[in-house]
């Protein structure tokens, strides 16, 4: 039996507005100079009227208060200065009565050294259970690589304890010993604390400093796998006994490092997005959107039941840990001219003083906070524009008493001013006589009233808390424009980061026909057309628009929310009559763009029609083929498996996979339910497996389905008495993956074209007809044949391969180590010795350097070369199968290839020229150089027309790069033979020279080298020049090693020219083509990464 929290909905935190406050700073009811729960209770109506929905209380537990309460001496009580447990309960009840949730701190990482656990531990003998509550060592050299966080005060993470006669571990202050979570008793103690507060009714817990919970030698003791095991346990305990609660991770890390704290939706519900915050301030000061768009581009997708926590300011300094050294220097210069404004690695200032008390800047920043994907968190006092006091120590300058009125002590307390826990702000600009709640409540134009309005407005639209985000890319970089979308709600947000008025032309062609309504004033704007949409924004202005479907001038007929499809009689109700009309006119057009696998997001859907369907797995699910037509007259066909769920199952779908819902349904027998993606229905997933296993056939309305197990199915499936519970893969892209226990994986191909899917075709061929075993074993497929058409592949089943991650991720990890190692080693012969684009070292010197510094990666590149050669030999091994038989390369083939390459490259060079002005300054020079060599590159393609060609065309991988291989026990498994998803099936099945794959992998090495360099130097830009020749060395050496081993394995193979000149010319042409393709992609998506393909092109 779960005990419910005060919120009525499990995902309440997605729509919440959180207000962070310290009890001591808010209101003092007993006039002792310290805020307390009695005072907070008196001010609940203020918070309710402000519109916030959740109160986050900073630590209020008994504590020596040497770290503002984060040094806890008793987890299950209230600090006497703040009140009693009864007063806390009264506050909690009163908050709940007003519909406010309450979140408190769970400081898991450490206690105060005054906590009885520590006092007992230091007095207990080594090895005793009591001693084991903390992390002890006889030496202070253990975990030597671990950084120190409070650099201003701490010199080591170890402190000698004279009583225990040992060092104890602490990641923060030396009076805050870290708890030892390798001790199960400590875990249980902390769970007891969690249960204690949740049973009382607390709605959320902020998990303080969770990356540091576990220590392991040889690591940086942050974000360790064991930490995630622990958090999963905390979550599982929470879910077991409580519902509608929240745990929020405080992990001051890069977004990719924070992502694991969400797990598969089974760790933290929320996590702060730390790197976004300083970048909002940077973008504002630079008047350039790039800092924001770049960090959001690096922000990975998170599980559907999870949420980012966004903030402008909080109780700590404006942390600059998650910015590069150069960016930090800029931020210090821009926002903390006085050194007293700095503390640790950050700036200890409140919002208003940071932006020179400029109301427009405050409003614009808040508009971003309220409209970005995540839950906004406000810091007390910022709603009235309170100032700070930089003359107070530590971060106390931003923790001064709340300013309620111009009365004594700002209305915070009636105590003698000298008794206050902190002086109130008294300067003429921010002092309480000028800035206070009372004055602003009486002023309709005050910041407080503006904040109230904005909060109320945001609460009207769930899209802000739950919707997707898509940045627009207008030429004027002072404008930040983005689209948000959620369940039929389309919102466009545009912000001017500049202090002057700015024009902007937005490319909204994909939304042509929609009518923007400005949200704050409900003002109709001109409808969107295919032409650029022009807006002008005042200084720091922002506009939010709801995008509505067009109206012809008459009052719009409201969408009828009561038109719920009745499925009492089964699937016919969905696929015929009113149900079908509803599905095709509203259901699918709104559902499809929400799916990650839907490739038509950039185009406006004109129609979505069901062209075939059939019941599957009894009445529970149905498989549908949907023909999607776009406004630009293109079309696609998608495979959409659907299921009906009712009652608790429907609730589960609503709370954990709401994006998968097409629309609500009802049934006389089963009540209310939902029509949703069948991938989220375990019964249907199991039915896919048995459909293959039992080699079943199924007629549909206009076609048929056939399950085909491979000859290895039985072996791969394993003992039939062992159940293989289905689960869903989290790395869903253009396909959907279903995992069956730890043995099988099913890939459902969403975009359908007649003809065999190359992934399935090649996997099956390699597994069943060759000896090549470095691919996931093929276990079967589901084929679909529409009447009068060739069969297509709906799904492919493969054996699940245990692995250590994909090759791209592993390579970047290796590169991080490599750059860390090389950062302080001058490149032999100086930085220029590597030459800008042609290393000047001799081959022997280069090889010696590579062997010395590249470590195991060099060997692994050779292994990959060997496996690639073996793959190509296997793909060319069957001359009897027309789909795989190698074919001689002819002169016409070369002419055709040259012509295609020339056309593509002309387009890319054109795009580069058009975008030249938009590129970052440091890239413009390279881009100009590349354009100046345009003719030479085009000429290079012409060379291949003159080749006396003697190789062969074979089936190839088609989209070969490091992301398509898995690292498995010092070796590799090659996967994903689908080809480039954007190309047609026929193109993807066409035979090519295997050198196309080789070019793909060589470019991937180049990408990895420079992506790793950019990542590394983002934090340490001063090393860029030192490391650049090392990057080139790495790229060249790995490429050489890969190619050398590949050529050994494929020596004499008929598919390669035996003439070295021909081999090299063709390879370079493919390399150039690939680099140009990458250039186009980066121009469209990541302008700062354009330098990587440019490097590649210029080095050819």
């Amino acid at each position, binding site marked *: 039996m779960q005990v419910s929290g*005060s919120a*009525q909905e499990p995902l309440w935190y997605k729509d919440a507005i959180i207000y962070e406050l310290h009890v001591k700073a808010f209101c003092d009811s007993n006039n002792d100079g310290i805020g307390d729960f009695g005072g907070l209770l008196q001010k609940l109506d203020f918070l309710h009227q402000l519109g916030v929905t959740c109160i986050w209380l900073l630590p209020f537990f008994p504590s020596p208060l040497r770290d503002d309460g984060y040094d806890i001496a008793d987890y299950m009580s209230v600090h006497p200065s703040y009140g009693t447990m009864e007063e806390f309960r009264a506050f909690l*009840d009163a908050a*709940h*009565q*007003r*519909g406010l949730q309450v979140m408190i701190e769970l400081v898991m990482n450490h206690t105060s050294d005054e906590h009885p656990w520590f006092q007992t531990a230091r007095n207990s003998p080594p090895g005793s259970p009591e001693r084991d509550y903390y992390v002890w060592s006889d030496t202070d050299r253990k975990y030597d690589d671990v950084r120190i966080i409070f650099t201003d005060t701490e010199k080591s993470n170890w402190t000698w304890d004279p009583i225990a006669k040992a060092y104890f571990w602490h990641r923060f202050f030396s009076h805050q010993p870290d708890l030892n979570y390798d001790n199960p008793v400590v875990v249980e103690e902390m769970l007891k604390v969690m249960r204690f507060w949740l049973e009382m009714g607390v709605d959320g817990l902020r998990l303080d400093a969770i990356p540091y919970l576990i220590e392991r030698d040889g690591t940086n003791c942050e974000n360790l796998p064991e930490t995630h095991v622990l958090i999963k346990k905390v979550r599982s305990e929470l879910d077991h006994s409580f519902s509608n609660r929240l745990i929020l991770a405080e992990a001051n890390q890069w977004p990719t490092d924070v992502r694991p704290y969400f797990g598969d939706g089974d760790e933290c519900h929320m996590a702060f997005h730390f790197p976004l915050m300083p970048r909002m301030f940077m973008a504002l000061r630079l008047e350039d959107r790039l800092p924001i768009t770049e960090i959001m581009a690096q922000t990975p997708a998170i599980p559907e039941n999870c949420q980012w926590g966004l903030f402008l300011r909080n109780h700590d300094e404006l942390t600059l840990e998650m910015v590069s050294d150069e960016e930090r220097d800029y931020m210090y210069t821009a926002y903390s001219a006085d050194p007293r404004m700095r503390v640790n690695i950050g700036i200890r200032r409140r919002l208003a003083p940071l932006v020179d008390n400029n109301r427009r800047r405050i409003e614009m920043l808040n508009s971003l906070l309220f409209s970005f994907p995540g839950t906004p968190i406000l810091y007390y006092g910022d709603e009235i524009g309170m100032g700070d006091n930089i003359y107070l120590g530590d971060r106390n300058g931003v923790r001064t008493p709340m300013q309620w009125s111009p009365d004594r002590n700002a209305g915070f307390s009636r105590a003698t001013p000298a008794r206050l826990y902190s002086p109130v702000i008294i300067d003429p600009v921010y002092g309480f006589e000028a800035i206070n709640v009372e004055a602003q409540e009486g002023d*309709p*134009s005050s910041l407080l009233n503006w904040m109230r*309005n904005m909060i*109320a*407005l945001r*609460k*009207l*639209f*769930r899209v802000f808390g739950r919707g997707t985000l898509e940045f627009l890319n207008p030429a004027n970089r002072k404008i930040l424009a983005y689209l948000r979308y959620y369940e039929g*709600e389309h919102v466009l947000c545009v912000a001017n980061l500049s202090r002057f008025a700015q024009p902007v032309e937005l490319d909204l062609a994909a939304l042509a026909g929609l009518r923007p309504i400005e*949200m*704050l*004033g*409900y*003002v109709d704007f001109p409808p969107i057309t295919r032409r650029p949409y022009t807006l002008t924004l005042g200084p720091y202005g922002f506009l939010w628009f*709801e995008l*509505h479907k067009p*109206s012809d001038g008459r*009052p*719009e*007929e*409201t969408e*009828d*929310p*009561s038109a*719920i499809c*009745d499925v009492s009689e089964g699937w016919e109700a969905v696929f015929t009559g009113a149900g079908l009309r509803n599905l095709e006119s509203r259901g699918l057009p709104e559902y499809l763009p929400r799916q990650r696998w839907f490739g038509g997001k950039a185009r406006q859907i004109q129609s979505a029609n069901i062209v075939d369907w059939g019941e599957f797995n009894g009445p529970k699910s149905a498989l549908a083929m949907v023909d999607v037509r776009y406004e630009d007259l293109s079309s696609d066909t998608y495979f959409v498996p659907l299921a009906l769920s009712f009652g608790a199952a429907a609730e589960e779908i609503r709370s954990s996979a709401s994006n998968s819902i097409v629309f*609500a349904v*009802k049934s*006389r027998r089963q*009540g*209310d339910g939902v029509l949703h993606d069948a991938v989220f229905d375990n019964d249907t997933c199991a039915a896919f497996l048995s459909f293959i296993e039992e080699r079943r056939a199924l007629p549909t309305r206009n076609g048929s389905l056939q399950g085909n197990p491979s000859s290895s199915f039985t072996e791969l499936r394993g003992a039939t008495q062992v159940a293989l519970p289905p689960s869903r893969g989290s790395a869903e892209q253009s396909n959907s993956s279903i995992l069956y226990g730890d043995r099988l994986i099913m890939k459902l191909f969403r975009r359908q074209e007649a003809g065999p899917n190359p992934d399935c075709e090649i996997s099956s061929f390699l597994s069943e007809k060759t000896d090549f075993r470095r691919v996931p074993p093929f276990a079967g497929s589901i084929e679909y044949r529409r009447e009068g058409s060739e069969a297509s592949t709906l799904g492919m089943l493969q054996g699940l391969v245990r692995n250590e991650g994909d090759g791209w991720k592993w390579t970047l990890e290796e590169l991080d180590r490599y750059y860390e190692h090389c950062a302080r080693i001058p490149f032999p012969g100086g930085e220029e010795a590597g030459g800008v684009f042609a290393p000047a070292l001799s081959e022997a010197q280069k090889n010696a350097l590579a062997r010395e510094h590249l470590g195991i990666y060099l060997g692994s590149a050779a292994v990959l070369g060997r496996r690639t050669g073996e793959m190509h030999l296997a793909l060319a091994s069957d001359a009897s199968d027309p789909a795989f038989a190698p074919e001689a390369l002819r002169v016409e083939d070369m002419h055709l290839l040259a012509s295609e390459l020339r056309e593509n490259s002309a387009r890319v060079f054109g795009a580069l020229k058009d975008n030249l002005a938009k590129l970052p300054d440091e890239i413009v020079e390279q881009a100009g150089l590349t354009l100046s060599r345009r003719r030479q590159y085009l000429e290079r393609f012409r060379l291949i027309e003159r080749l006396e060609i003697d190789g062969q065309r074979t089936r190839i991988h088609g989209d070969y790069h490091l992301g398509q291989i898995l690292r498995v026990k010092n070796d590799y498994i090659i996967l994903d033979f689908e080809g480039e998803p954007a190309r047609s099936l026929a193109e993807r099945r066409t035979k090519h020279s295997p050198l196309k794959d080789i070019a793909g992998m060589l470019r991937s090495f180049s990408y990895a080298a420079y992506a790793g360099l950019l990542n590394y130097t983002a934090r340490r830009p001063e090393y860029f020049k030192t490391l650049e020749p090392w990057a080139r060395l790495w790229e060249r050496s790995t490429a050489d090693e890969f190619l050398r081993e590949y050529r050994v394995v494929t020596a004499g193979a008929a598919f390669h020219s035996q003439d070295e000149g021909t081999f090299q010319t063709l390879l370079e042409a493919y390399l150039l083509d690939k680099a140009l393709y990458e250039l186009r992609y980066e121009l469209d998506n990541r302008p700062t990464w354009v330098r990587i393909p440019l490097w590649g092109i210029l080095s050819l």
Partner: protein
Amino acid sequence: MADIDTIPQETKAEIEQIGRAELVIGLLGCDSSGSAEASAVKATEKLRLLAPDINAVFVHWEGSPEPGKAAANDSGVRLLEFPRGAESESLLQAGRARVRAQNDLFGVARLLAADACCLICTDEQSEGAECMARLIEPILTLDQDLVIARYQRPRFDGLINTAIIYPLLSAVYGKRVQWPMAQDLGFSRKMVERCLSARQVRPGQAVDLSPAWITTAAVTGGLQVCQAGLRTRPESARPGADLSTVLAELLGPIFLEMERDAPFWQKIRGSQSVPVFGDAIPVSEESSHVDVRRMIESFQLGFRNLQEVWNLALSPATILGMKKLTRLAPDQFRMPDELWVRIVYDFALAFRARVMNRDHLLRAVTPVYLAWVASYALEVQDAHETEVKDRIERLCGVYEAEKPYFQSRWRWPDRFNP
């Protein structure tokens, strides 16, 4: 508020004995066991014409201190008795008593797993049976979730509904329900669950009961709503009550409900008609001339005395429009719909913004409402029945046309406006 835990244990035991019933019928209009039993007998006869084997339980509220006495009496009908609340002092209390009765009904319906239930307010037996049939039939045969009585009334009856509640809720919620506060209602099982959950609030949390909450709960919940033509409408809870009090007690909860439902209706554009089942039952109407002089004088007096309050709530252009009205001779007295609608919207906005004590604010509506009544009376007193209907629908159209004004000021409640 709605919670089956409020049903006494002994009543639950009685219900357990009954087991299951397809229909639960609440007889709110009957004030004695005798009349309730007679009504139940009549209704049962009517029911058997619809479905011969249908199993129904009747719920009746009377003054007995013993709750939940269930009896299968001589006539064979099952009658479950609940105590009636204390005599109502105000509409609000009457409303609470009614919601308590609705709550009892929903609780019984859930415990008996009823397919449908209905609440009938008349004590006239044969009319009650007819009413019940009309409220139940769309649920059982047409899959509707909420059937709301649509009363046929003389043109000068139910004017608060005509002037404010019907057109306001139609424009705001997007469903044209003519009597959103109707007390004769039919509910599907789904609607019962919606009602039980829509009003679930934590102990101690303040609840303000809109007399139209069932209608708005159905609309915001996306349920199937229809209307059933009925002959009569029960008299208001307190005939002769002070108009200011009536207005305040009706409008306050409705405005509060709108505040809670804002995320729903802010996205609604336009409105849809709601089907009516059953023929409209005409009422005979004697022609009558209304003396509007005192109403106009009340308005003029209000304009002189309430300027301070109105200035806080109404926009300058609206005040100016009212000023022009004060200068009109009684026979020329006409309030433009646009002006009236903006006044209503402005009061709703001022209520939300808490510009002053809410009760005082709502009482300040009275003189201007009287001005609207005077204007309306002058306009329709000689009009044909269909012209009256058209007149009301025209007013609805203006509410709808002015909704963007309401939406914009709701979203950005700046007092500095035209």
